[in-house]
């Protein structure tokens, strides 16, 4: 699936909750819990993206012409957001990743989490994903 297609899938998935933000966040937390996104031993200093409060680890690899990400965070809501980002971007061609706008975040009503003043490392994570994609091309 293309980035756009996955984004649409996620938007639909979240539409069920409508105005029920509690449901939305429970879903996000479930996404966060569902998978250890990165191996413990890979959580090295160079993979760390230091937010002000919660931290994110990102690992990027190239396989065939595609970039694969795995990641983790110590905060579960951040981790849920990370899971969404991975689902959208991992396994995509570098160019698509670099050009992606990730508008689904806005559309599913979680925009505030991408505020650059937010105390997590999500914005830096997206930047790192794109930078890694550029480097790995």
């Amino acid at each position, binding site marked *: 699936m293309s980035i756009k297609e996955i984004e649409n899938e996620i938007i639909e998935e979240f539409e069920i909750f409508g105005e029920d*933000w*509690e449901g939305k*966040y*429970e879903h996000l*937390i479930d996404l966060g819990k569902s998978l250890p996104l990165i191996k413990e031993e890979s959580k090295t200093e160079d993979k760390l993206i230091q937010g*002000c*409060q*919660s931290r994110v680890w990102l690992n990027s690899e190239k396989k065939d012409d595609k970039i694969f990400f795995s990641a983790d965070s*110590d*905060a*579960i*809501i*951040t981790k849920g957001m990370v899971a969404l980002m991975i689902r959208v971007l991992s396994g995509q061609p570098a160019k698509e990743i670099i050009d992606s706008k990730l508008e689904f975040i806005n559309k599913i009503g979680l925009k505030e989490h991408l505020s650059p003043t937010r*105390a*997590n490392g999500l914005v830096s994570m997206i930047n790192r994903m794109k930078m890694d994609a550029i480097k790995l091309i």
Partner: protein
Amino acid sequence: MLVKEVKYSPLNVELIRKDFPILQRLVNNYPLIYFDNGATTQKPLQVIEAITHYYTHTNSNIHRGVHTLSRESTEAFELARKTIAAHFNIKNDQQLIFTSGTTDSINIIANGLSRSILKDGDEIILSAYEHHSNILAWQLWAEQHNGKLKVIPLKEDHSLDYDALKNLVTAKTKVIAITHVSNTLGLVTDLEKVKKVAEKHNCILVVDGAQSAPHMKVDLEKLNVDFFVCSAHKIYGPTGTGILYMNKKWLNDLPITKPGGGTIKTVSFEKTEYAEGALRFEAGTPNIEAVIGFAAAINYINRFGMEAIHKHELDLVNYAQYKLSGIPEVIVYGQNPDKAAVISFNVKNAHPFDVGTLLDKYGIAVRTGHHCTQPLMSILCVPGTVRISFALYNTKQEIDFFIEKLKKVITMLM
């Protein structure tokens, strides 16, 4: 887990809340519950109006002016100094210097001492509680002068180990710089104990009152320490100003390290003679508006009196701690009875960031993270805490709502 028993002194909180327009606000469709007063308090109309009045009627640069606005501004500014000095029972208002806040005040002290008293290899004692602002200035000095920072450790109950303090002091200890109330744990330092040690060993005592001044009566004449500092914005006043109180003996002895217009008597390129009194340290155009707003805040809280505010807030702390103790997943830090209006806690197996993020969804503003006390976080072995801190406008109903939603958040996160 109960804080010192106090009788409930009835502030008319319902009326008080009307003075704070921001409390009418909705956040995420819930009425705002503002429990982040340790970071900064909200401002009453009286303060906002003092600022507005200043800018619509009086605004002018102060000192030296011959025209009417300048005279009126100067008088308002100096009246503010008197008002605030009286509040802290500072006998000579020249001992009250306006700075841009606690951090600025501490830097002025540390820089001044580093040019006079402090010699290479000297030692400074801090507590394990300190806010970064009361660590970094001293650390910077220590790095450059082969100095040593020594730290008063915590006891089991997270209170300071005053016995250990006695063993930390040596002949090289020149300064004890200590917070009056821990901004993270709310615990109150026993300044009398610290003073005894300081006096015995002739140490300069610097008190960071950023978290005591908002919550309790501070009598600086009686306290009689060398330096005391705090910020207006944490006492219902505007951002950008704070005080630096110095004991009389320092007024002409602390070297000037931040000079500028206002601090002088005469200037030539060859030689400058500095002014006397508070002006000596007030470099550049002061934050006139904020100082006047600060005095309005002080007048406002003195309508009720610090004792009544203190009692109200302690009552809230007691109530909240009691309620929190009923939630098994919650760990409260700093379980000592001598406490000001601050509580830090965590939810087992949950990151404070998650707890804070979800509480915000219910309109509840709490602070999460290291609260600028990373060394304390290392001691507690946590990445951060959730902190709730109260002010005179908070209520038990707000605490009830908070507890209800906290429980909900915990089920969401588990």
